[in-house]
């Protein structure tokens, strides 16, 4: 698993994530090169997006767990117009379903548009943002 490189971050233009109290752990983990999820400390079930209460057992006890970083593409698109802010080239935006069963929006990198398809197997890596933080992105798993 790669980690953000200081040199790359210096020239990064990608927008920073917005931190909120209940989701700060996710972005703090990403800044360290870790893909993290919220798990209920009582019933052990995952929830994403993060939230202060377990939707299954209503426990307030939650723990942060390291996720596999493996997943598949559920859907994808390339924003052609208007150009997204903070990107030199339009990125491939994708909805990723992680092996653990939760979904998140991210990018697929190191892939040609012609290779993109729903169901593509992907693996996490991390991309720097303009404020020196990082976000999880994905690349195809080499066969």
């Amino acid at each position: 698993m790669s980690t953000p490189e200081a040199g790359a971050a210096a020239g990064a233009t990608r927008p920073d994530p917005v931190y909120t109290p209940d989701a700060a752990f996710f972005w703090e983990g990403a800044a360290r090169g870790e893909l993290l999820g919220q798990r209920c400390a009582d019933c052990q079930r995952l929830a994403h997006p993060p939230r202060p209460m377990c939707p299954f057992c209503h426990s307030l006890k939650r723990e942060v767990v390291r996720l596999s970083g493996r997943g598949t593409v559920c859907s994808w698109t390339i924003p052609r117009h208007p150009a997204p802010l903070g990107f030199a080239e339009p990125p491939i935006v994708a909805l990723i379903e992680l092996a653990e069963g939760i979904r998140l929006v991210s990018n697929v990198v190191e892939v040609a548009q012609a290779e993109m398809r729903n169901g593509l197997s992907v693996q996490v890596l991390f991309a720097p943002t303009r404020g020196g933080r990082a976000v999880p992105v994905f690349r195809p798993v080499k066969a």
Partner: protein
Amino acid sequence: MAQHAAIVGIGQTEFSKASGRSELQLAAEASRAALADAGIDPADVDGMITFTLDPSDEIGLARCLGVKDLAYTTRIPGGGAASAATLHQAAAAVLGGAANVVLIWRAMNERSAYRFGQPMVPASGGVVNVAGNGTGSLLWCMPFGAQTPASWEALSSGHYMQTYGVTNRDLGHVSVAQRRHAATNPLAWFHGKPLTLEEHQQSRWIMEPVLRLFDCCQESDGGVALVVTSMARARDLKRRPARIVASAQSIPREVEVISNYYHADLTMMPEARGVAARLYSQSGLTPHDMQLAMLYDAFTPQVLKQLEGFGFCGRGEAKDFVKNGNIELGGSLPVNTNGGLIGEAYIHGMNNITEAVRQLRGTASNQVPHLTHALVSCGMAGAILSND
């Protein structure tokens, strides 16, 4: 017959790309028109409902209208998902006794002042207030370049489209049908300007390979207002009432507005199915009883998913239902006969409700014959309206 509320007045400004006046003025003009249409003195309004996103203030608008004593106000979250929900909450207010004459308004200089279709990125380190506007889009999409409603729609529809083999060309049939309706509606921005499928296919990608330019609604300036009161009062007014036979909201587990991809089954729209179940249960009616559907059409895939969600066709069948002409005038279920948000104007869904009322009165430009029941839907809310 159960006690019902009714829409007794509709009003609007012109729909444009630059209104040249304040949003409050647009709200006041549309409200004055709706109350005049109803034959109700503006002073007698005692309830007011709008969207959380509407920039005009209740008191500011009440001052314009000379409202003598406002008894009830509320605002509904969720962007355009508030549109049909205004009917549900107005009916609840009227039938529950909280208010007698509820004015609903939505007025905005969307195109000339801010443009929802432009990318937005929150300031680094800033505090973001997401209350009432959903959380997913701002927090979980922006750093990845998914910064517009079209991008969220493309992500939430991609799995549905792949599952049922829906192509962008299939989506084009929705635009073509609605632009045909707009072409013969003098209120529409695209009046006199029909669209061919080839023109749709030649329009530029907004979200490749999902949405082209003509899969997206317009950006518009304008205002729309509605007046809701009880059926008992409605019978004494000058217009034929549009009875609110049933109304409902539905926000199923893990559903959110447009950045809607955390719920279990991405091949359908759970909120539309939830609204449909409530509307049909309340009314005893079925999809076959509807002769018109006004479906929130910010983007063409939403029309397909609502057609399936409300049971007008089976799951995965909407692309063929549309291709076979069912949603056009003369088809089995005319849809968005004003041109919708794609063809008429984007007044956040409210202009699709006024069209349903015109149709039920028999005064629409593209009049559907023998009409008794119309569905209005914005996905997360809906109503069945009747003129009987």
